Every structure is written in C-alpha cells, then in structure tokens.
C-alpha cells in the first residue's frame, strides 16, 4: 500500500472531517428548535421552570455550536483544496447551492445566534425570542441547501455536459433544488437530527432523575425528549422509506449493496437479511437470518417487486451505460459491500434502539404508573444519546460509501476528482494535523458538555424560599466570554 497516495489520504481526510463536523450539526439543528420551544413556553407562561430549561439547554447548544462553525469552514475549503478536479467539473452547479446557503441561511444563523446569546438583556423579550426562531429556521435552510448540493452527487439533475466534455453545466436550477433525493433527504436528516437531540435531552434528564436532583424540571424535559423521540422516529422511518424508494430508482447499486444482493431477485426471494456471516473473501455467504419479501417491499412497495442484483447491474453498467469508466473500476461498480451491508443495518438498528428507549420510558413514567422508575431504566435511558448519534453518523457512512466508486453518480469517479497539484505528503500533513487537533478538541468538548450537563439547570426556588422577584434582565450580563 502506498502511504502517500493522495487519493487515499484525501478520502480519509474528507471522511474524517465530515463525520466530525456532523457530530455537531444535528445537535445544532435539533437543539435550536428545542431551545426555541422552551423559550416560547417561558414567554407564554412566565414560568421560571421554562426559563431555566431554556438557559440550561441553551448552554449545551452553544458549546456545541462553536465547534460546528469552525469545523464547517474546513468542509467548504476542502472541496477546492483536496478535490480541485471535482470542483472544476461540478462548480457551475454544486457551487450555487453552497453560495445560496451562505447568503440566505448561514448569515442569518450566525448573526441571530449572536443576538440570542448576547441579547438577553439588550432586546425586548419578544424580539429576543424571535432571534432564536430565526436562527433555527436559518439552520434548517442551511441543511436544505447542503443536502441539495449533496443530492447532485447522488443523482445529478438539471445539467448538461459542456460541449468539450470538460464539466457539467447547470441548465435548470429549480431541478437541482427539487432533486427527489434532496426532497427525501431533507426530512430524513432533520427528523434524524431531532431524534438525536431528543436523545441528548433524554440522557441528561435521566442522569439527573437517577440521582433525584432537579426533579421537577428534568421530568418536564424528559417527557419532552421521550415524545420528541417517538415523533421524530416516525418521521425518520417514513422519510427513510421514501428515500429508499428514490435510491432504488436513482442508485439501484446502492440498494443492492445495502443488502449485498448479488443476483436480481423478486418477491419471496427478495428477502432482507437481519444478520449474515459471509465467506472470508466477501463474495458469498455462509449463513444468514432472512425475512422473505421484505427487500422487495422496501424497494418497490410491492410484495412481488423485483430488486436488481450487483452482478446484473455490473453487467449493465460495463457494457451499456458506463463502458467508458469500466476499465478504471475493473468492471465493478459496487461499493465496498461489508461497509454498506453493515452500516445499513446498524443505522436502522441503533435508531430503533433509541426509539425503543423512548417507548419504554413513556410506559414507565406514565401518569398511572404505580411503581417508581427502577434505577436500571434510568441507566438504560442514558444510552439514548449515543445510540441516536451512532445511527445518524452511520447513516451518512452508508449514504456516502454507498455512492462509491462515483464522486458524482454516472458522471465522475472519485479517483478522478482529487487535486492533481497537491502532493501526498501535503495531504498527510493535513490529515495528521486535523486528526490531532480534532481529537484534542473532542476531549475538551466532551468534558465541557458533560460538566455542563451534570451541573444541571439553576435550581428552582423551594416552597420555603421567599417568592422570586420579577426576573431582572435589564443590564444583567447573562452571557459574557
């Protein structure tokens, strides 16, 4: 293996920095909404409980947000730095949603978050509440434009090839923005982000409730998290089903790879394996646990639908559709199967576990419950956070690894997108630097989030305390660096 292979290093760097960035993105998307909802409740009821919850989850949101911003710059620069050939090829199309994201969404988000953080004592209550809602909506629009850009890589639409074949040129921006992949991926991503946020809220609340502290507030946030998780899981499942249908029609190879289905199958034979043990070389299977019809149902919404297999697709791609690329990939247009197969299952499995936690939690904390919640249940609930985060990260691994060997499906191979002018040792330096700094920051970040989460919200006044004065916010510095 060539340790200075720029392609390999650039791919590792992109995967690493993107996943790392995405540790922070979903929590931003979902926690902004959560904080906005809590603050709205405070605005409407005036109850101190909601104010403290807003502040508390706001702190966690902010520690997380700074990392999201600074790691996001790396993402944008990286297309040009490491993938210049790709950038030249798709810039006419791919750049526009990124520019729109900046002009229409990210500017809003960054500006209004600053206003929200530092504006507690400077803005009227209603206006201050509006800033967090604007920031939330800005964040969602950001997600939409980024997903529209990504959707072009999965399913290029609204373009034609330049006369000299050197690049793809945009012919229909509306088609780019309404790419069916983007429209399905947007709710899937937002609901998943909300699942993860609900996971965070559940974990933190359960941690406090296990210790019997901040019980009144943490019960409220727990109920919010549990219901949020259920609703979000329903959204994730429905939109995921939709995304699967789109995937089958636009990238059938990805679905075949998700099931490691070598030969096309219909109806009963188009089964979904919950688990399988493959031969060491990965070309066949030794044993598997299968549900008949399920793959046909997932892929076509019909019990006797047919699903194309890897071998048949390879034959089609090599001879008819993409013969010009066949030599470069040795006639194999399939992604790395063990990654797609297992990531597809772990994504669904971890998401399911997180949702199950919420169902159990709602049952145990129901109003008519006669027994107190046992300690093991609280401890179990704390895992809602890692489970939902794992599901969302692995989902992206599936989506992007499943796109391989293409960088833009049907138009450009990943190996052709890398920067020709950047030597391998430069990429090695940056890979090592990013890995080192990101690892160090992760340690600090996790420490700070845990510390803040465990400290809990400001305590509510007890029954014997004097009644609280009207919360004086005027010129009280609530947030300073």
């Amino acid at each position, binding site marked *: 293996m060539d340790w200075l292979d720029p392609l390999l290093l650039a791919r590792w760097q992109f995967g690493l920095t993107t996943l790392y960035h995405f540790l922070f993105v979903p929590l931003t998307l979902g926690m902004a909404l959560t904080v906005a909802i809590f603050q709205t409740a405070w605005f409407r009821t005036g109850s101190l409980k909601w104010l403290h919850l807003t502040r508390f989850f706001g702190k966690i949101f902010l*520690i997380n947000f*700074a*990392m999201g*911003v*600074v*790691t*996001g*710059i790396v993402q*944008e*620069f990286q*297309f*040009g*730095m*490491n993938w*210049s*050939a790709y*950038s*030249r090829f*798709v*810039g*006419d199309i*791919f*750049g*526009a949603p*990124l*520019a729109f994201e*900046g*002009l*229409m969404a990210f*500017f*809003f988000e*960054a*500006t209004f*978050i*600053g*206003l929200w*953080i*530092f*504006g507690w004592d*400077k803005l009227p209550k209603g206006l201050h509440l509006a800033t967090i809602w604007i920031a939330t909506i800005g964040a969602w629009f950001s997600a939409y434009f980024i997903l529209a850009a990504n959707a072009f890589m999965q399913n290029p639409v609204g373009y034609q090839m330049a006369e000299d074949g050197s*690049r793809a*040129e*945009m012919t229909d921006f509306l088609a780019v923005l309404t790419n069916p992949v983007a429209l399905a991926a947007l709710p899937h991503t937002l609901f998943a982000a909300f699942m993860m946020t609900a996971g965070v809220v559940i974990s933190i609340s359960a941690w406090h409730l296990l210790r019997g502290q901040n019980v009144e507030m943490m019960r409220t946030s727990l109920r919010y998290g549990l219901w949020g998780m259920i609703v979000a899981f329903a959204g994730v499942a429905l939109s995921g089903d939709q995304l699967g249908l789109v995937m089958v029609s636009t990238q059938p190879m990805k679905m075949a790879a998700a099931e490691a289905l070598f030969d096309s199958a219909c109806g009963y034979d188009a089964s979904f394996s919950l688990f399988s043990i493959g031969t060491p070389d990965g070309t066949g299977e030794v044993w598997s646990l299968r549900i008949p019809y399920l793959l046909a149902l997932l892929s076509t919404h019909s019990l006797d639908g047919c699903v194309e297999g890897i071998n048949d697709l390879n034959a089609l791609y090599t001879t008819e559709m993409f013969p010009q690329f066949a030599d470069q990939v040795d006639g194999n247009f399939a992604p790395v199967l063990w990654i797609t197969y297992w990531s597809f299952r772990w994504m669904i499995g971890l998401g399911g576990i997180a949702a199950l936690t919420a169902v159990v939690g709602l049952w145990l904390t129901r109003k008519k419950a006669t027994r107190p919640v046992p300690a093991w249940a609280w401890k179990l609930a704390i895992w809602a956070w890692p489970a939902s985060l794992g599901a969302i990260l692995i989902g992206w691994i599936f989506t992007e690894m499943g796109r391989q060997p293409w960088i833009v499906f049907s138009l450009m191979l990943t190996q052709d997108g890398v*920067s*020709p*002018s*950047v030597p391998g040792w*430069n990429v090695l330096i*940056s890979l090592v*630097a*990013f890995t080192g*700094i990101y690892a160090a*920051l992760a340690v*600090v970040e996790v420490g700070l989030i845990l*510390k803040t989460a465990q400290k809990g919200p400001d305590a509510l006044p007890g029954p014997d305390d004097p009644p609280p004065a009207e919360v004086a916010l005027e*010129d*009280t*510095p609530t947030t*300073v*660096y």
Partner: protein
Amino acid sequence: MDLAYLWFFIVGFLFVGYFVLDGFDFGVGMSLPFLGKDDISRRQIINTIGPVWDLNETWVIVAGACLFAAFPHWYATLFSGFYLALLLILLALILRGVSFEYRHQRDSERWKRGFDTMIVVGSAIPALLWGVAVANIVQGVPIDENMEFTGSLLTLLNPYGLLGGLTTLLLFFTHGVYFVALKTDGQVRQDARVLARRSGIATVVVAAVFLVWTVLLAFGEERPLAWLVVIMSVVAAVLLIASVGANLRDREGWAFGLGAFTIVAAVLGVWFALFPFVMPSTTDPAYSLTIENASSTDYTLTIMSWAALVFLPLVLVYQAWTYWIFRKRVSRTRIERAAAIAH
C-alpha cells in the same frame, strides 16, 4: 460573460467585507498580550467581539462559496495551489474560534492563559497569511497549461508576498486596537489609544511601501486598470494617515471608521491591479486564469446575481442592526459583575 465581470467585483466585495470585519477580530485577538493586563481586562477585550466574531467569520464562508460558484477554476486552482497556507489558516481559525467559547468555561489560570495564547496565535496567522495569499494572487504564481499550480508553500514566501502579509498583519492589528479603544472603558481604552499611536505609524510605513510596490507591479505588468490602482492607493494612504491622526486626537469612532475604509480602498486597489486576471501565471501568460476563462456559465451567474441582489442588502441591514444593538462599550464593571454572578 458580462456577468462574470460583475461577479469579479461581488467576490471582491465579499472579501473586502471579510477583511474589514474579521480583520478587527484578528487585531483584537492579537492585542491581548499588549492590552490585557489582568483577567478582567482580557475578558473586556474578548467581549468587544463576543457577539460578532462569528458573523464576521461567516463572511469568509460566503466569500468562499461565491468564489466556488462564480469562478470554479479560480477556487480550484487557488485552494489546491495554496494548500498548506490555507491549512494553516483553517487550523488557526479553528483554534481561535473554540478558544472564545472555551476559555471562560473553567476558572483556572492555566486553562485561561492556554486559550489566550491560542487566540493570539489563531489571530496572527490568518492576519499574516491572507495578505501573503492576496499579494501572491496579484503578483502571479507558476500555473501550468491545465490551470494547476506548480509551486509550493515556499513559492509564496517571496518579498512581495511577505510584504503583503506584513501589511495585513499591521493593518488588522491597528484596526483591532482602534476597535478595542472604541468599545471599552478605563485603563484598557487608554492603553489601546497609546498602542494604536505606535502601531499606526508602523502600519503607515509598511502599507505605503506595499501600495507603491503594487502600483509599480500594475504598471510593470501593464494591467489595464493600473491608473485606478494609483487612485485607490492614494485614497488608502490618505485614509490611513487620517485614521492615525484621528486616534492622536482621541477620536476613536473616526479612527476606526477611517481604518475600515483604508482596508476597503487597499483591497479595492489590489482587485483593480488583478483585473482582468483572477490568477495570472508566471509560467506563461497564456496559462493565466482570467475572469472569462475561470467563470461559471451565464445561466448560473444570472441566478447567483438575483440571489446576491436580494440578499446582500438584507444581510447588510440586519448585520448593521446587530452592531447597533451591541453598540455599548464593554465596561469593566459589567465584566466584574458577570464574574461575581458566576461565582
């Protein structure tokens, strides 16, 4: 293709915005060792940019995205070519950004001083390297027939490039110190005025040499807008001297405003010197990237133009409003009160 010329200036506008806004953030960060004599004053200094550094930094993201969308080849050649320089900028921006957020999270002297150092280094590196990058773009770098950069990091460290870096470093430093003087009270404010007097003079000298060199370069390379470079250089010089004068008279608002417009004029001058190229090649002029051969299609630029036309004014309005909301000075007593509440 005419829209590409418009976008050359829109991209220029976005970078001007970035340099003016994040420029003083860098200066504020770099001023910490000079002005921050105790923790309260350091917090005072950092809080002058607390609510706005993030939106200021957003300008580079938008500038980068618009560069990508409007001039894919410029973006690709520049970002892959200046790889290690941009890597250093990215790492610096990461460390600086998280430091603002992290430093106050723990009440430990070592913890805070560690993040203070990262703020200083994370501000100085981009302040220097953006100047190096821009100067090298104007001067030209080795680019082959496939629009690929053929130099290395050392190629960028030539006299004109380094002078460009030193100019932005000093310009941003003084600009940031003006901002500290404008936004604080007490000892920090006094110290900032005095510091700006010294750094202002050094800035004038270095910037003058850089502007003269840029004018000579524009004429030497027979760039068509060389005469506009002269005008903008003179304007920049006058504004800079005026800002130094305003500071001498303790007119903080004027000093800062004139300093901001110095950066506008200087970057505009550099942009005129570049025109009609976007990345001239020193290998062979025929290999140069120009506004025409590096741009996106008319269709894409038309859509982008509408977006910019509608949203840029809106962005300017709400960002100006943000600055208005946070117009008050960061007083020492406010930080002391916040510190007391936290305990």
